[in-house]
């Protein structure tokens, strides 16, 4: 079932179009990667989902209902540009934002305490935000985003500003949230973590959607049936070599196009002729796909 459906949404500003007839569906309980270069329209789309910006055409369905004001309690938003009241204490701020998202004071306090303990921020509870390190501020911001347990969590570049250790902590929290049923829209223009955490993606470029679907399907569809083998022996004559390279110890690395043959056929045939050290399918990375698709569209 889809938690969020974007149907033919367009948004125009005075001087340019930000989104043009974009449609996409976010299945419930998945991590949905919203990808695209800078200025593709990601932030505009996110703002429309958050009802910060209005749309000029199209419609949005949230949990089978047209998106409306009451849904803000079901959505959590971590904007790319983070912001907290610098002079206000961490604790007061968490309660305040929790209340704005509809929590009772008691509930906001209870949850804040749990999260502060989880992120080892208890000693900083009564410090002003400006006294915290940048990483700690980011954690506070993350807590504020998820405090009201939104059904849909929208994270715009959530890992910027974190060191690798803290990025790992946040990544694990995101996975835990997904496991507990939260649907997550993850917007980024960095591809490294996409394959690891996203189930589905959508690629936006210049206000248009150019690709969407599950990560597995997209990879399959864009696979060129290439394989890489490392082996000892003569290169069999029947394989269609794309590239080859001599390694040390008389080994050889070859990338070849398998054409219409399937995996098990190839392995059987190869095994009878050479000594195989490693064998794997060469699958295009999302990173490569992203660059190729954007180039392709921009040149067209």
């Amino acid at each position, binding site marked *: 079932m889809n938690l969020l459906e974007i149907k033919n949404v367009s948004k125009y500003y*005075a001087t340019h179009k930000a989104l043009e007839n974009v449609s996409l569906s976010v299945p419930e309980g998945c991590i949905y990667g919203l990808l695209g270069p800078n200025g593709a329209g990601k932030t505009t789309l996110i*703002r429309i989902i*958050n*009802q*910060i*910006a*209005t749309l000029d055409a199209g419609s949005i369905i949230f949990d089978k209902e047209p998106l409306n004001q009451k849904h*803000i309690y079901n*959505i959590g*938003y971590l*904007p790319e*540009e*983070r*912001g*907290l*009241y*610098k*002079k*206000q204490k961490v604790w007061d701020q968490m309660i*305040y*934002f929790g*209340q*704005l*998202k509809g929590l009772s004071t008691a509930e906001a306090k209870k949850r804040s305490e749990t999260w502060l303990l989880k992120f080892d921020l208890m000693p900083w509870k009564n410090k002003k935000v400006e006294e915290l390190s940048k990483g700690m501020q980011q954690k506070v911001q993350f807590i*504020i*985003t998820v405090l009201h347990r939104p059904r849909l969590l929208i994270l715009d570049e959530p890992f910027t500003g974190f060191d690798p250790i803290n990025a790992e902590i946040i990544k694990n929290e995101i996975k835990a949230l997904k496991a507990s049923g939260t649907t997550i829209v993850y917007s980024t223009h960095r591809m490294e973590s996409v394959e690891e955490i996203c189930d589905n993606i959508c690629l936006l470029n210049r206000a248009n959607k150019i690709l969407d679907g599950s990560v597995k399907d997209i990879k399959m569809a864009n696979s060129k049936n290439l394989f890489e083998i490392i082996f000892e022996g003569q290169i069999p004559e029947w394989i269609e070599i794309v590239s080859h390279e001599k390694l040390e110890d008389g080994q050889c690395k070859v990338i070849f196009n398998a054409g219409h043959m399937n995996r098990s056929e190839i392995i059987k045939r190869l095994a009878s002729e050479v000594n195989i050290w490693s064998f794997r399918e060469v699958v295009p990375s999302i990173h490569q796909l992203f660059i190729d698709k954007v180039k392709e569209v921009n040149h067209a």
Partner: protein
Amino acid sequence: MRKIWLITKREYLSRVTKKTFIVMTILGPILIALFYAVIIGISINQKTGERTKTIGVIDHSGLFANSLINPPKVNFIYADTSLSNINFEVDGWLIIPKDFTLGSPKRLLYKSTQAPTLDIQGKLTRAIESATKNKKLILNGLRQTFLDSLNLNISMTTMEINKSGELTNSKAELNFGLGVAFAFIIYFFIFMYGVQVMRGVMEEKTNRIVEIIISSVKPFQLMMGKILGIAMVGLTQFLIWIGLSGVLMAFISLTFALPMDTISNTIGESGGAQNQGIPNIMNAFFDLDIGFYALIFLFYFLFGYLLYSAMFAAVGSAVDSESDTQQFMLPITLPLIISFATSFSILSSDPNGSMATFMSIFPLSSPIIMMVRLPFNPPWEELALSMIVLVATFIVFTWLAGRIYKVGILAIGKKPTYKQLFKWMLLK
């Protein structure tokens, strides 16, 4: 409504608990009291402490021997023109030249070790002028007793006729004082707290907090919450000031009860007309309908502030930095400054004239000008009209400001032009 309340509460608490607020709130009345103490001190000093100056007169013309009238705080001593009997100390010498005649008065000469003040120079020339005039009048047949009877000192008691036709003691001085005080307080508060609203909006915009907040509340709620929260800060500060000032005043008047008498006496000495000034003002003050004034004051204070702070909020939302605000601040602050500046001339000329009437109904100036007019009993229908116009303008302006605000807080980058601001107002 709960959200506006939450925002109002945060704005209020975050400001009221600030050290600067607490310090200003406590120090404010003390500073004001000190200021008055210094002013009163100086004026007492001037009236009572000014030393009588001794001026030696050397009259070569022989016209004024022993006949000059001593001006206040000046004592003339006459020296022989041969300069033989000089055995006294003087502050200066006034020398009347030999060729000084009643028909053609010549230039006088003044010699002293210290340069004379303008005050002394005036007193001396006036003394000679009036002596010369008197002598001429006597020469032309008028008697000295007649001339003495020309020195008049007439004072006036002012009475006011109220609506029911009864006579009451006039409170002209008090009315003037109240008018100035009202104008000043309202001007000061609108400015101070209006700018705080602007800064608060800019803080949220530049810190990018606003995007998180308006994913939870409507921009208009955020704007109203902020404006109301800061209004309550202003009211709190004002009430504390009134309370503290009352305590201080009571303390001062109890401690210095005797000197206060002296003040009114010395003032009474120097000008006969104000003889009963101080007790009169005291009485008049207790005659006032304080409750009514306080209500009207609160009304104009609140709605004047609300009207202006909505505009300040719009400016804060449109710009990214403090330096960019100047251009948009001017049209907002201009009516405020003009009304404050005109309030004095309105007070001293015609508080119920057509200019005053217009400005006390025009919503951008009415919070100040109507308060200035209030002690002079403006017609109630003008008061009612002014209030209605103010509330109506407040609603329209807040609505328009809200539209600018909605677009402005998310627009980062180039400073908008007036044309763009206008377009923002019309966006859906």
